[in-house]
């Protein structure tokens, strides 16, 4: 069983999705446990694979027994072995969280299709993570994207349609760019397997075709990860989507896109190419720095919690891409750490936003005065995750920032290190708006204990509370036990820097 685990991770959920569809037609109550069970299986599988990879080294799985270059290959090495559990952890948390949230935010008749699409989205992302074939990557990308468009549109809010269409158009352009890039790579080498590509490409590094491919792929993935000037789809999509969907796409999908970008840049083109042949690191650093600042500045100005968090994502993506720009061991360690950290904390924050929408029906700051009095646990979770976002030690956000700055300084990028630090200060600006409103505004000004909560406003239901609290505690726990984590991250980074 374990040797077929890679393919099972993809096929089982597809089957499960069909099953959900069929059973859900019969009775929609089946959907939730089925989804949960599938994702639980996937999560367990992901962990098992990680352990296997850490113990035995890279796993190659030939789909249908066809060896590359003819067949499609699933490869699990330390890098995606690290990403996979993150993806599935967040997916699991979201799945647990989704049930109550979906009841409120999605029309009842759409609930079955929601779970199906949810399942497909996760599957697509898992596929993207573990595949070793670059065209396969594209296919999974499109699968997850289409699922995401529809999931966003499943909200009750009509504006979600516009947001989804917006995302669809930009996402398709991104997909087109990626496809073109893959075509160019194929022209240059005649193979689609990533490992083969990495082997064959150095011979044709000088070719314009390769440059074009690089550019197209980077631009394509930049749109998908919402790197600053290409982030335009993100705020609307995150804001208008149902909360559970927001959690999923903001954490898992964004992270997998980043993974793909890293994978293509490091494992296909190798460090030598993009640091020496096409020296774009300075440019990437610059863009990342702009993204960090601009995203945070835009976030500060928002009047809506969810929208603010969306812009915060723009800023945080900048941190991860920053690591790409520095491209040394320490900074990349920080970058990978931030992939995990940001997934956990942003997941928690969006969950809080979802809970608030669930209870209050709005996430506009002006309506959230003193919400901490009625929802103490939720707001405490926000405070903790927010502290991590700011980078207060000893949270995970601090650890990743520490590594990033360390890496940047080691590479001699003084100014950019300063920008990075300033970015975390700006993070204070937006995180604190909520803290202030929730904890310290006039309507919470009651004598300890005998406040008068608005009717219906109380602490979140347990199924939403638990994943949220776990994620927020994870922010702290991961930050404290960052050293064991580095035992996984460090080899992953060495792998990236050492080539495929």
């Amino acid at each position: 069983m374990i040797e077929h685990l890679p393919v099972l991770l993809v096929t089982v959920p597809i089957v499960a999705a069909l099953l959900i569809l069929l059973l859900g037609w019969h009775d929609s109550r089946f959907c939730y446990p089925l989804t949960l069970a599938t994702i639980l299986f996937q999560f367990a599988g992901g962990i098992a694979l990680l352990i296997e990879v850490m113990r035995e080294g890279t796993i190659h799985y030939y789909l249908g027994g066809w060896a590359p270059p003819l067949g499609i290959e699933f490869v699990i090495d330390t890098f995606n072995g690290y990403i996979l559990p993150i993806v599935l952890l967040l997916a699991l948390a979201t799945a647990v969280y989704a049930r109550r949230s979906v009841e409120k935010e999605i029309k009842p008749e759409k609930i079955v299709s929601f779970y199906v699409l949810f399942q497909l989205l996760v599957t697509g992302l898992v596929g993207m993570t573990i595949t070793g074939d670059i065209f396969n990557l594209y296919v999974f990308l499109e699968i997850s994207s289409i699922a995401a468009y529809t999931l966003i549109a499943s909200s009750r809010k009509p504006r979600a349609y516009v947001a989804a269409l917006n995302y669809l158009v930009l996402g398709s352009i991104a997909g087109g760019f990626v496809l073109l890039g893959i075509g160019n790579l194929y022209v240059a080498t005649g193979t689609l397997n990533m490992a083969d590509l990495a082997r064959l490409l150095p011979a044709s590094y000088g070719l314009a075709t390769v440059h074009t491919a690089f550019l197209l792929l980077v631009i394509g993935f930049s749109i998908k990860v919402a790197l600053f000037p290409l982030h335009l789809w993100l705020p609307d999509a995150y804001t208008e989507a149902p909360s559970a969907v927001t959690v999923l796409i903001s954490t898992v999908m964004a992270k997998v896109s980043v993974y793909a970008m890293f994978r293509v840049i490091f494992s296909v083109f190798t460090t030598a190419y993009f640091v020496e042949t096409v020296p774009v690191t300075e440019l990437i650093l610059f863009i990342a720095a702009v993204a960090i600042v601009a995203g945070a500045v835009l976030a500060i100005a928002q009047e809506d919690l969810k929208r603010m968090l969306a812009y915060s994502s723009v800023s945080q993506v900048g941190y991860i891409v920053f690591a790409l720009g520095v491209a040394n061991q320490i900074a990349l360690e920080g970058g990978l750490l931030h992939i995990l950290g940001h997934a956990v904390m942003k997941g928690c924050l969006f969950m809080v936003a979802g809970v608030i929408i669930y209870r209050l029906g709005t996430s506009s700051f002006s309506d959230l005065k003193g919400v901490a009095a009625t929802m103490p646990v939720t707001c405490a979770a926000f405070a903790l995750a927010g502290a991590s976002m700011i980078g207060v030690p000893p949270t995970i956000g601090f650890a990743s920032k520490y590594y990033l700055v360390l890496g940047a300084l080691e590479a001699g990028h003084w100014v950019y290190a300063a920008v990075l630090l300033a970015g975390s200060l700006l993070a204070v600006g937006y995180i604190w708006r909520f803290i202030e409103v929730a904890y310290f505004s006039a309507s919470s000004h009651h004598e300890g204990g005998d406040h008068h909560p608005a009717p219906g406003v109380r602490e979140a239901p347990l199924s939403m509370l638990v994943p949220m609290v776990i994620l927020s505690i994870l922010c702290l726990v991961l930050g404290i036990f960052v050293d064991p984590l580095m035992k996984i991250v460090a080899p992953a980074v060495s792998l990236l820097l050492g080539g495929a």
Partner: protein
Amino acid sequence: MEAVLEAFLSHYNYGMAIILMMIGLYALIAKQNLVKKLIGLNIFQTAIFLFYISFADVEGGIAPIYLPEGMEAIYVNPLPHVLILTAIVVGVSVTAVGLSLIVRIYEEYGVIDEAGLLKMVKRR
């Protein structure tokens, strides 16, 4: 100049792919009507398909069909064709989703042009 023209003419199908791509992107950006935008997207994707098919072509090659015993022929590269079949499927799905979204938008707002939509969205 001669050489450039020569080069361009010899790769005219790539040129056409680029031109198509630009047309598609132009439509995406400049057209106010959402359906026309989607058509632009389709044109863009078609251009990519064309690009793939072009580089798969081998001068004098024939379709990679299994030939009777003893016959020899130069095949065009079959892999890009296979890939592009997948891509076409993706393109169709995207178009379908996009169109259904436009239908919903029309139901909700009663407009399918961008400017009007912005106005409607803001009003709500």
